[in-house]
């Protein structure tokens, strides 16, 4: 290096030059789209839905939470409705416990009530209007209450009113300041509650579900640290897309709360493979025609072809698909149920029958795009044709549309137990899914 070289190097090596203000915008426009923070969209949406439905369920269950006591009948009465006070809802049941004993004649039930402060009420309603005995633990008193009982045979609802006379306050039974309380309740096993409710005897014990699930992909690629950069570029180039599952399953009611389901499930995981190859060459064939002149006139022509390599950029965009067919074997345990809906926990396994992949990924050898069906050195393709067993867990909410049909809403998580890739491929890949299933259940 001579003196002139040193001067140039010294002055220019760390020199900063101005660049165009718009340079970054132009670069940004050419970069792969930045990942948007929609990663948590489906989990959050599903969580909100679960909370909404769970909240609604809790409302139903709390609303009908009435303890039942002794029962002198073969059929246990269902107490379904609540109390109104002068047509205004009051919260009696939290403190006032009713026991409506079912008699041979549903139109003449006995009513026992334990009030919040230890008072007991007994009313044998042989007629439409009867007097009410009120007593507490220490003393037995007949107090001035009138009970009027009305029954509606059509849907087995019973309403009765307690009306205070002689200025006896009704706050023995409730916090309501009113002097007239109206109770509406329903008794009898013949209430047309939905058959899926496991607390109703003689429930139908077989069912058939047809369902569709929107799936959110949680992809896991594991391997040695030396391949971290390769893992990174795979995650960058393989973008999750809308995925789904669909299928059907038969259900059998094993016992009071336990159900067993099995059937056939099809899942399709979609991804978009997008890779920009900045240094790719394309081959062009140029046709050259040379004319031969003689005295200014064309007398012949020679056509030759020349192949030239044109350097440039190639964008590979391929829609990858991973399809699996599985047999689910699931157990369902009913946590809560009422006449409107039921809530169950579902868990079990998905046994893979077949798995098929299509598309492109970057090769771990040279980071160039390759077909996923391309064989490795050991003769295997990258992905297995059977991905083994997946574990499944979820919450299943069944809304009773009619006596034998339910609408299903089932948020779930499915976790692969083994890698989808062959051992010859250096990374272990699992695709777990979080999904929200909707479907219909028919009971027969």
């Amino acid at each position, binding site marked *: *290096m*001579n*003196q*002139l*070289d040193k*001067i*140039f*190097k010294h*002055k*220019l*090596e*760390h*020199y*900063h*030059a*101005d*660049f*165009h203000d718009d*340079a*970054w915008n*132009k*670069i*940004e426009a*050419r*970069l*792969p789209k*930045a*990942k948007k923070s929609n990663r948590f969209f489906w989990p959050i949406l599903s969580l909100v839905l679960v909370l909404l439905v769970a909240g609604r369920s809790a409302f139903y269950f709390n609303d009908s939470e009435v303890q039942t006591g002794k029962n002198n009948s073969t059929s246990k009465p269902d107490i379904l409705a609540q109390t109104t006070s002068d047509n205004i809802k009051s919260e009696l049941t939290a403190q006032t416990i009713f026991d409506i004993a079912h008699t041979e004649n549903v139109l003449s039930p006995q009513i026992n009530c334990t009030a919040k402060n230890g008072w007991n009420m007994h009313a044998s309603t042989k007629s439409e209007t009867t007097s009410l005995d009120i007593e507490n633990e220490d003393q037995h008193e007949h107090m001035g209450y009138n009970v009027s009982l009305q029954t509606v045979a059509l849907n087995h609802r019973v309403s009765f009113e307690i009306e205070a006379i002689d200025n006896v306050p009704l706050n023995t039974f409730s916090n309501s300041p009113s002097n007239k309380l109206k109770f509406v309740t329903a008794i009898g096993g013949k209430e047309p509650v939905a058959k899926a409710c496991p607390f109703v005897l003689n429930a139908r014990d077989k069912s058939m579900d047809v369902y569709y699930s929107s799936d959110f992909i949680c992809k896991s690629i594991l391997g040695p640290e030396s391949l971290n*950069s*390769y893992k*990174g*570029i795979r995650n*960058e180039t393989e973008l999750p897309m809308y995925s789904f599952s669909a299928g059907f399953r038969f259900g059998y009611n094993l016992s009071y709360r336990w159900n067993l389901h099995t059937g056939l499930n099809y899942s399709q995981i979609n991804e978009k493979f997008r890779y*920009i190859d*900045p*240094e790719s060459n394309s081959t062009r064939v140029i046709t050259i025609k040379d004319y031969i002149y003689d005295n200014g006139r064309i007398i012949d022509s020679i056509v030759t072809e020349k192949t030239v390599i044109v*350097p440039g950029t190639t964008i590979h965009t391929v829609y990858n698909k991973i399809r699996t067919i599985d047999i689910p074997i699931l157990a369902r345990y009913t946590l809560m149920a009422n006449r409107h809906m039921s809530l169950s926990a579902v868990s079990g396994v998905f046994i893979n029958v077949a798995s098929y992949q299509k598309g492109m990924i970057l090769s771990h050898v040279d*980071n160039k795009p390759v077909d996923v069906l391309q064989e490795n050195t050991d003769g295997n393709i990258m992905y297995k044709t059977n991905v083994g067993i997946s574990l499944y867990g979820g919450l299943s909410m069944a809304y009773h549309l009619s006596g034998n049909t339910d609408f299903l809403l089932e948020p779930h998580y499915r976790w692969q137990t083994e890698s989808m890739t062959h051992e010859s491929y250096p990374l272990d890949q699992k695709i777990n899914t979080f999904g929200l299933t909707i479907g219909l259940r028919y009971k027969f």
Partner: protein
Amino acid sequence: MSPLIVNGRTEKEIIKACLQGDRQAQRDIFHMYAGKMMAVCLRYSRHRLEAEDILQDAFVKVFTHLHEFENFGSFEGWVRKIIVNTAIRNNQKKSFIQEEIGLEHVKEESVGPEVFSTLSEEELIKLISALPEGYKMVFNLFAIEGYSHKEIGELLNIEESTSRSQLMKARRMLQEKVNELYTIAV
């Protein structure tokens, strides 16, 4: 010298964020090195517009190939290498029009090399930019980037002897340009 911490993040953290597609981190990396790399691009190009194109092409490569960067090396060195390679490739694309300059008319040195020290960086870059493509490449790679003739030969797909010859011619041409400037100034 680039700052070690930008927007509260070290260079290593910014690079990690870039790998995760963080656009702000990519912007930070660009602004950390764009000025210095633009100066490199100017030396390899004929005019500013061409330099801007090289800068953009090179930074797109930097971000799309960032996963290939090994953390134990200098990130600036890695970026600079991509800039130089992009500039060479850009030159090869248009090199179907080869410029050949005879040296018969080149005058003998009449001013000492210390005259170059009096020139500004912009003037030095203009002198280099005005060189024929082949001379410019070899002079930049040898004198400023520190490549050997063997490496230059492999990079430009030319013989080592050609690289030596072109370096010599580039130096003479630069000398001639300075002589002209000096003569005018005097």
